[in-house]
């Protein structure tokens, strides 16, 4: 178990692509860090640099207070789980797990003990003599996990380990990885482009775009206080709605005017918009912070949008209603028992306390 520190780490590939740009992160002992971001944002590259499979072009990587930039993977004491498992096809499950220990000259009884232990944790006891091709996707994934845990490494690295599994299995394995981390407490770095995985697994998540860190924080922090429009749109499902509005001042009050509706900002946000009067800003509001008027019990000041219903999706526990004003489409998550008719005009209440405001040029949140 160990601390992992990345200081100004960058990766420039031979073809000139700057895949990771000035990556700074301090990972505490026992943390579960999730790197999340869209395809091609440099998550895998970062992980591979930590693993030692890729040279670090610039910057420093410290594992357990040792500078490991030039230490080969086998001496970094890390274990990695690959997206496609990378199990040795010619070895049995047992041998797949034992291989790393054998190479490290761990005594046979110790190997046996650790493999049996891992097999028990992962429910693989009955499969130890099988070859990988005789296993299902979920079982292979478990063997890959087993191969990582028998080594008792300082750091676990996962590269989209669940992306080859079907939805149900993914949820199940997600829970198992969570349990495993709780049980072993090993520092873990986990790559995914699935924000649900990121939210459910990470003690902290790192949102990346184009090789740069956008935001680091606990899942709730990142969800509640995204630093920019990108993070706001990336975390949350369905994603946050963005509407371009103009800031207006009337007396002591500030309003956001979209053209077809106008909402009153709460007092707490006045200081944010005072410099933007007469200018455009981007208003961000999550679907779960919009309510159908018929089910809203709170005070309704001047924060109602009326818009046309375009589509509605009922998922059982929730209902997503896709609205459109003259200028913008947006989604609201409403009670499934509200009866919504296509094409009708309905009133939607905005929870203005949960509103996010972004500068249209920098796309950063307005402070």
């Amino acid at each position, binding site marked *: 178990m160990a601390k992992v520190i990345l200081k100004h780490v960058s990766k420039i590939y031979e073809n000139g692509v700057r895949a990771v740009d000035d990556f700074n992160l301090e990972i505490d002992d026992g943390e579960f860090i999730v790197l999340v971001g869209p395809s091609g944002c440099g998550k895998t590259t970062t992980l591979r640099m930590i*693993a*030692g*499979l890729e040279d670090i072009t610039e910057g420093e990587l410290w594992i357990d207070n040792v500078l490991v930039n030039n230490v*080969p*993977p*086998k001496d970094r004491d*890390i*274990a*990695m789980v*690959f997206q*496609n*498992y*990378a*199990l*040795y*096809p*010619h070895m049995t499950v047992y041998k797949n797990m034992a*291989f*790393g220990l054998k*190479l*490290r000259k761990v005594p046979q009884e110790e190997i046996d003990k650790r493999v049996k232990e891992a097999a028990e944790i992962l429910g693989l006891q009955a499969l130890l003599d099988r070859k*990988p*091709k005789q296993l299902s996707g979920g079982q292979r994934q478990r063997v890959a996990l087993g*191969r990582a845990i028998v*080594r008792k490494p300082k750091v676990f690295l996962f590269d989209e380990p669940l992306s080859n599994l079907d939805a149900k299995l993914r949820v199940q394995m997600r829970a198992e990885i969570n349990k495993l981390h709780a049980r072993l407490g090993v520092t873990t770095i986990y790559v995914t482009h699935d924000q649900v995985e990121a939210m459910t697994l990470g003690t902290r998540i790192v949102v990346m775009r184009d090789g740069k860190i956008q935001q680091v924080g606990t899942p709730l922090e990142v969800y509640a206080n995204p630093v920019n429009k990108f993070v706001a749109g990336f975390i949350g499902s369905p994603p946050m709605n963005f509407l371009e509005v103009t800031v207006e001042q009337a007396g002591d009050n500030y309003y956001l005017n979209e053209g077809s509706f106008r909402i009153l900002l709460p007092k707490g946000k006045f200081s944010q918009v005072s410099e933007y009067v007469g200018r455009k800003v981007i208003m961000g509001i999550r679907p779960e912070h919009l309510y159908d008027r018929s089910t809203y019990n709170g005070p309704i000041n001047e924060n109602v949008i009326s818009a046309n219903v375009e589509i509605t999706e009922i998922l059982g526990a929730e209902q997503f209603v896709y609205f459109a004003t003259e200028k913008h489409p947006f989604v609201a998550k409403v009670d499934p028992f509200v009866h919504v008719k296509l094409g009708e005009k309905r009133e939607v209440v905005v929870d203005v306390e949960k509103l996010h405001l972004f500068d249209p040029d920098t796309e950063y949140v307005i402070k």
Partner: protein
Amino acid sequence: MAKTKEQFYGQSLVEERKRKEMISNLIAYIILSIGAFTMVIPFLWTISTALKDPSDVYDGRFIPQRFSYIYVDRDGKFVPSNAYREGYKEIRAWWANFVKAWIAVPFDKYYRNSLIVATITTLGQLVTCTLAAYAFARLRWFGRDAVFLLYLGTLMVPFTVTMIPVYILFKWLGLVNTLIAVILPALFSAFGTFLLRQFFVSIPYDLEEAAFIDGANRLQILWHVILPLSKGALATLGTFTFLFQWNDFLWPLVVLNSEEVKTIPIGLTAFQSAYGSQWELVMAASLIALIPVIIIYLFNQRFFTESIMLTGFGGR
């Protein structure tokens, strides 16, 4: 219950498809059988002739009418000649021609030499080609691809062009008329390197990276991961090399002169020029020469099928 129109037509359509399938299968089988038959006929004829009595060789029959014979002299030794002398005992048996051929020339020596040459070169090539192929497939070094192309280019140079310079070289080294002269040049092979390289490249790189992280070095990866996955390719290369060396004629003919070092193909030619009119002996000798080839093939056959099945790594 009467059939509806749809059921009726549906059924006849299925039947029609089945019939068409059967006909096309039949045609395929006939063509394949003809092919297989033409391939195997000369071989069967060889066997038939090798079993025949010398006076029946030209009888034009496929099934031998009687087995050949061999004489045993007074000391109980087999006689290589067909000429009868006082006191000889005649034995008729299917193996008569084989024994005659075997004792007519020092076949045992040829056999030993050929086995030495083919075995050592096969093992040698497996080692050298594996190492070279891995270096070309996975290590990164300056000029790698250029060197690989150059090496491949040597495949284009016919052996007849390099034969004389190589002969002079071996003469200078004092190795002419030794088995080393046959073994040494055959320890390395551009073809084998190419074959294995192509196979190694197809093995997912993830496996190697996983092994790296598990703590393996390059040689351990090669030994524990790459080679076990390449059994098919190795068996193919091994079989090709063995067969080629077993049959190789020109170079051994040039560098090997004495009976002591001759290999089977050269021995067979000598045998053929000495006993050329005795076809039953020539055929028997050829069959004797074939035995290791058949054994090697039977032994490696399962790897061939395995290697075909392995080409898709989908089921990892």
